[in-house]
């Protein structure tokens, strides 16, 4: 049975905090709950970005997700999760 949204957010956060690399592909989160459809997983991950729990990292061609405190911000602080 699929996890509830809050359980899923917790699992995603845990995964993003403990993975060896700070940046994760959306597919890396699929393992958090194999019963959650990819599109629902994307919606939850994007909601977490809006809440400031995750942030986007983009090379321009690929976008990844990361916990704000784990990723180096080129400008020292801030980034899209912290923009007013």
């Amino acid at each position, binding site marked *: 049975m699929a996890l509830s949204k809050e359980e899923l957010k917790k699992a995603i956060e845990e995964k993003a905090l403990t993975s060896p690399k700070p940046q994760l592909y959306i597919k890396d989160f699929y393992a958090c709950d194999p019963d959650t459809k990819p599109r629902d997983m*994307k919606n939850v991950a994007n909601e977490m970005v809006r809440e400031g729990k995750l942030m986007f990292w983009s*090379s*321009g061609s*690929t*976008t990844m997700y*990361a916990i704000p405190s784990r990723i180096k911000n080129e*400008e020292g602080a801030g*980034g*899209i999760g912290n923009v007013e």
Partner: protein
Amino acid sequence: MAKRETPLLDQLESGPWPSFVTDIKRQAETKPECWDILGILELSYKERITHWKHGGIVGVFGYGGGIVGRYADVPELFPGVEHFHTVRVAQPASKYYTSANLRQLMALWEKYGSGMTNFHGSTGDIILLGTRTENLEPFFWDLTHDMGQDLGGSGSNLRTPANCIGESRCEWSCYDTEDVCHSLTLHYQDEIHRPAFPYKFKFKFSGCPNDCVASIARSDISVIGTWRDAIRIDQAAVKEYVAGNYPANGGAHSGRNWGKFDINKEVIDLCPTECMWMEGAELKIDEKECTRCMHCINVMPRALRPGLDKGASICVGAKAPILDGAQFATLIVPFIKVSKDNDFEELIEFIEKVWDWWMEVGKNRERVGETMQRVGLPTFLSVMGIEPIPQHVKEPRSNPYIFWREEEVEGGFARDIDEFRAKHKA
């Protein structure tokens, strides 16, 4: 910011072609940070290595695309390009602009950015080159609130859909490419602005097989206009072409003397399926052999026109060379009707079926064409619920291995091997 000495770049101005170096120098007169763009490039030419870092975490709030973070790794040498982010602005369908809109956009970019642009990027977006992080939100506010324009796609998002000029100016368009492009852009706002996929995803819409947006080479889903019935022939106009009274190709090649128009040499002999011939003064076409290449129609536009039963073919899986080299899209659906009447329901259903499969099966940074190549076309067709047809076969007999499913074999796989061997020695 001081003027930079750029002896290597200066050489690029000496050739016969317009030079971006000259353009940037001119822009540097009002935007001094542009000297640092030339400076950092000169340094890269000298050291033969880039001085841009890879990616970053900039963006505007709520969007996971449209801004590409660019930072210099030698900011102490070139402070003007410490941040030099790229902004992708979605282009209007068919890239029609009013001059007032362009002036407003340029004024906005002079205010918040370097003033440097790239019209257009390969996806089709308006590319605005070079701004600082603190300018992104104010720029985005003015773009969306004052101009009613939006950012385009980047990263693992649906990229800004693109289309040819379609029915707005082209008599050959077999469906309203602008309407589909605009409607699907609105329909898929979430996918354009928030990353959803293993990698980038593009769709492009061409009104006829001339494919003026090169969708077959550049998009993951390529929708190309076509027709099911016969090419319409005006035999009187054919005679005028043969007599030399109408210019071939609408006069497009009239700058040189190519000699008298020869319908055999210029049309019939060049037909890739050899489906045309003359019977007396009449041009005949074996419709079932016609592959809709458009060559004859392009050469004799007053005599030949696409048929009336119009729709589109859908091809899937093109990409530019990053991993396995460039590949064209593969024909998957030979014909569908593209109609606003049902809100492009058939097309949307197809797109989402591809997405649902690719989001599940595609590897990270794998375009849908690469996933198809990895699993094989038969598997892809079976997942999509599409019956194989001869047009799906690239070349007959190039692959001796045909895999049958048990339900496709009479008697299944449980037949008596001894009985079989009695007639067929091993």
